[in-house]
């Protein structure tokens, strides 16, 4: 069926997402702001949520002081998470299911002036 074809089509590319770090969060990634990454594919029937993504980012992208990125299973206070220019609080936060071509941004809030 069309729906099935589409879902197969989508699945093939599921794990390609764009990660961005800014507002100082890029200091945790050796000053590299943009990362185009291919995430491991979820197993049949499983979902890939922000919760898994955060752990993957901590293990694969964060170069030093991971505790300045993750605290417990979520980002540390002062980091805002955006999915496709939308605050992740509007999208189920940790339970948000990552989709192909999502742009996920971690911004550290600025205080200077």
């Amino acid at each position: 069926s069309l729906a099935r074809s589409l879902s197969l089509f989508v699945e093939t590319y599921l794990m390609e997402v764009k990660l961005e770090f800014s507002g100082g969060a890029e200091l945790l990634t050796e000053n590299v702001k943009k990362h185009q990454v291919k995430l491991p594919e979820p197993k049949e029937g499983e979902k890939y949520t922000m919760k898994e993504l955060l752990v993957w980012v901590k293990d694969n992208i964060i170069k030093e002081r991971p505790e300045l990125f993750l605290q417990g299973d979520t980002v540390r206070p002062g980091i805002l998470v955006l999915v496709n220019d939308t605050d992740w609080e509007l999208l189920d936060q940790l339970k948000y299911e990552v989709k192909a071509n999502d742009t996920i941004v971690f911004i550290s809030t600025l205080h200077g002036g």
Partner: protein
Amino acid sequence: PSIQRTSLNNAEISRYSRQLIMPQIGLKGQLKLAQASVLIVGAGGLGCPAALYLAAAGIGRIGIVDGDEVDLSNLHRQVLHTESRVGVPKSLSAKQSLESLTSHVQVVPYCIYLDQHNALPLIKQYDILVDATDNVATRYLLNDAAVLSGVPLVSGSALRGEGQLTIYNHNGGPCYRCLFPTPPPAETVTNCSDGGVLGVVPGIIGCLQAMEVIKLIVGPTAGETLSSRMLLMDGFEATFRTIRLRPKKPTCAVCGDEPSVTQLIDYAAFTGSNACDKVKGLSVL
């Protein structure tokens, strides 16, 4: 409105002609500006351009709060001050520059640092609060004071080549605590002395703060404010991004349905930092 006026005089109509001929502003909008009062906290990198363009636009009364004095190392971004006024309180220096630009605006300088004791009585005298400060403690203070006083908070920040801008506590949008219920670990907080800042970056954000203040005062004809949205700028890349924020949270400690913060607290203790952002030596050089 803070200031009772029923019309503009001919000098004002001629002076503001270029902006009041726009349908978004009009004579009505210009009169609203003349009746409004705005409190700008911080006469630094953000506060200078914000105050400059708000005074130029014809705001009735502008209060400027800053306990600091002008230093030579401020002048790369704090463009209301001058070399001859080094050592002068910033709020007075700002007043002097604004008054030479315009005699139509009342400028009230407050040479103090805001804290939990003096903030509320001051803020209650103004329609809109502008956060042009440079530290976490004052940002939480201003947020709570804005919520407790029922005024919108136009919040800008800048560091290195980046800037952020939003309006808190307005029109069902979130407050600062809705976004950041817990203060960041002190070691993750970088100020302009340590991290540096390109002067024009707070210049751009301060101008954008003035723009948002004008829209708040004039109302819906002047378009959509940044309430419930946040503007992120990366000056070195020349990119801007406007993001959609969560609404006001029912569980928020200060603006929620059952607030636990019902009066101002000790923000230095709460954030584990203080309001002083003085230089700690140019270790990077």
